[in-house]
């Protein structure tokens, strides 16, 4: 009797193992997407709930569920704290069966998540973070960096403004990975274009009162005040600079990373004339307009930012790779597959993902319209010039990524 029980048990275990190997390619039979974002603080409009909407739309548009894959989306708030973000990422990978983490708009958190993703051999599709280190000295075979990075912003905006005569710069820098990377990359671009940097001040993230920093910038007599910050910090500093009459005093403000939600929050009266670089504008062509028309009602009327677009496009490419491999467990393999296939999506057009994990697509230098030029709500940008994909991002050899041979 005992022997029989044991052999039954052995059979059951063997059976379970067989089932296991037959289906092991798709873990838990579900592709589980974790949207890790800022759901409550200064980056919540430019990413946040909208990134979840973008992920859902990517699932719908990819038709992946019709091809027999089940997809589930979870989301969480990293509160812009690396410790909170990394413990969520760890929990998702370890015990909740998440296969891929997307978004993560905070470079400090993103670097932590990238490290954990590599350790667990999953996939990280970074759309929210800016630091170019994600494809530079901290690059990882499990990370794809979509949408934008600090080198691209610096190269677009920094070069353009310096060439227009903004020869001396002062930086107001968000005091974490993103701000430091943006200042570093912009300084390089400004100096290359023949300008010089006269000073900088570091400001804690999510600051309400910029007055002392703006006064330092004002008294530096620099021609351009570079805002190496993002989201709520950008809008706060621009609003307060207007109150100090900085632009009227002859200095120019350069928002190095401005999202359409920031322009919306500032209003055209304050934001008009700002020049900056973006990789996506909702009113670019029929496809982007169609996407935005579906997107906006699902996210409180917010028109998609480039971060939302990046979440969507990077997931489309991910689904293609998973579909081709019939596998969602081996992160390195999936990312390799994503790199080997050209990208083609309605929002960024044709492009590719480089071996260091950088997604290449064109970037656009835009200027914010005056209130008179704007015909409709969210009609905010004039496209000044297009920077082709192969010039928009840092040359492969300059990043110092260990994956580049």
């Amino acid at each position, binding site marked *: 009797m005992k022997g029989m029980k044991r052999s039954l048990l052995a059979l059951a275990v063997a059976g379970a193992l067989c089932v296991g190997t037959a289906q092991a390619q798709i873990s838990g039979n579900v592709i589980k997407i974790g949207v890790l974002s800022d759901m409550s603080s200064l980056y919540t409009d430019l990413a946040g709930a909208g990134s979840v909407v973008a992920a859902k739309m990517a699932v719908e548009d990819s038709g992946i569920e019709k091809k027999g894959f089940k997809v589930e989306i979870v989301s969480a708030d990293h509160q*812009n704290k690396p410790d909170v973000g990394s413990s969520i990422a760890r*929990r998702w990978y370890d*015990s909740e069966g998440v296969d891929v983490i997307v978004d993560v708009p905070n470079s*400090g958190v993103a*670097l*932590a998540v990238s490290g954990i993703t590599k350790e667990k051999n999953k996939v990280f599709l970074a759309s929210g973070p800016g630091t170019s280190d994600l494809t530079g000295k901290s690059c990882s075979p499990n990370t794809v960096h979509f949408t934008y990075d600090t080198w691209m912003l610096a190269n677009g905006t920094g070069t353009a403004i310096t060439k227009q005569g903004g020869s001396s710069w002062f930086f107001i820098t968000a005091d974490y*990975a993103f701000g430091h990377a943006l200042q570093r990359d912009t300084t390089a671009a400004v100096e290359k274009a023949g300008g010089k940097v006269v000073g900088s001040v*570091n400001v*804690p993230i999510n600051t309400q009162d910029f007055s002392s920093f703006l006064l330092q910038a004002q008294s530096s007599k620099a021609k351009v005040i570079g805002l190496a910050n993002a989201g709520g910090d950008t809008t706060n500093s621009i609003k307060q600079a207007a109150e100090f009459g900085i632009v009227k005093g002859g200095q120019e403000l350069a928002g190095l990373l401005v999202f359409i939600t920031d322009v919306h929050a500032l209003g055209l009266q304050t934001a008009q004339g700002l020049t900056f670089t973006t990789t996506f504008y909702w009113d670019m062509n029929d496809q982007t307009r169609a996407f935005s028309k579906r997107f906006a009602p699902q996210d409180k009327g917010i028109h998609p930012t480039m971060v939302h677009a990046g979440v969507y496009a990077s997931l489309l490419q991910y689904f293609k790779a998973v579909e081709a491999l019939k596998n969602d467990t081996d992160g390195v393999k999936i990312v390799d597959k994503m790199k080997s296939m050209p990208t083609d999506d309605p929002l960024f057009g044709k492009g590719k993902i480089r071996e260091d994990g950088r997604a290449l697509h064109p970037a656009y230098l835009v200027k914010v319209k005056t209130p008179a030029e704007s015909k409709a709500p969210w009609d905010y940008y004039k496209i000044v010039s297009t920077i082709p994909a192969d010039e928009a991002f840092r040359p492969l050899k300059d990043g110092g990524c260990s994956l580049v041979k």
Partner: protein
Amino acid sequence: MAAIAEVAAVRAARRNGIVTGTVVMTVLLAIAPFIGLYPVFVMKGLCFALFACAFNLLLGFGGLLSFGHSMFLGTAGYITAFTAKEVGLDPALAILAGTAASAALGVIVGGLAIRRQGIYFAMITLAIAQMMYFFYLQMPFTHGEDGIQAVPRGRLFGVIDLTHPLAMYYTVLVIFVAAFVLIYRVIHSPFGQVLKAIRENEPRAISLGYDADRYKLLAFVLSATLSGLAGAVKAIVFQLAALTDVHWTMSGEVVLMTLLGGMGTIFGPVVGAFVIVTLENYLASLGEWVTVITGAIFVLCVLAFRRGIVGEIAAWWSAHRR
């Protein structure tokens, strides 16, 4: 005589209860990874439980409300992370270095703070903790908002591979239980008795010939050291030392854990820490509502069950036995 015998019997019963409780707790924690609990979550709970126990040693038994204990947790975390990552020390030595740093900080802060009582004591500790916070915010080695990331877990004593989740788990468990037993011994030692006497009536303890300041300083340093141990272990477990651990909200959180679980009880802080960590873990998707919910629980605790969870159970139990 009968009264003395009765007191002795009650004490023996209580001691038996605590010994049984400790054994049950240890066994439960030892099997936790095998009954489906996520080890990293339990380790987080253990780190905070140790932190709260250390805090309780000072508040519950010394009567000193420090509002700056995050500085000990965070300092040890940063020093451990730095020595493990940049200097390349063995994790045991890194933890030791972090703990020692907190102990040294405890001597300085304690030496200043215990000269005052009540709200002034709390304010001094808060002020110094804020100074430490901005120090860590600005120092280059802490990497500001990013924190020290990707701290290697390494090999304990060069042998035990801590990257294995269970090896890490049992290391944390051993450290926690050892510290817990140490705290229990301290509380029930003559030193602990004098500490309680000072808490109840300081002038009287002084008139009996005890140097109250020395006892308070020693209690403060002990508490700082053990808080440091919690922070050091936490840095190795999460491979990260970040500003959250030195922020003043962390000092508030440990007060909440201790009060919720039961101030002045030996198991209270452990229960309180696990309740708060569980709430934060399972309500994380609600974002900032977690703070509102823990705040509401705090108000409820103060209004309805002031002795805390374990304190109320103990009180009910002893009333029930009569």
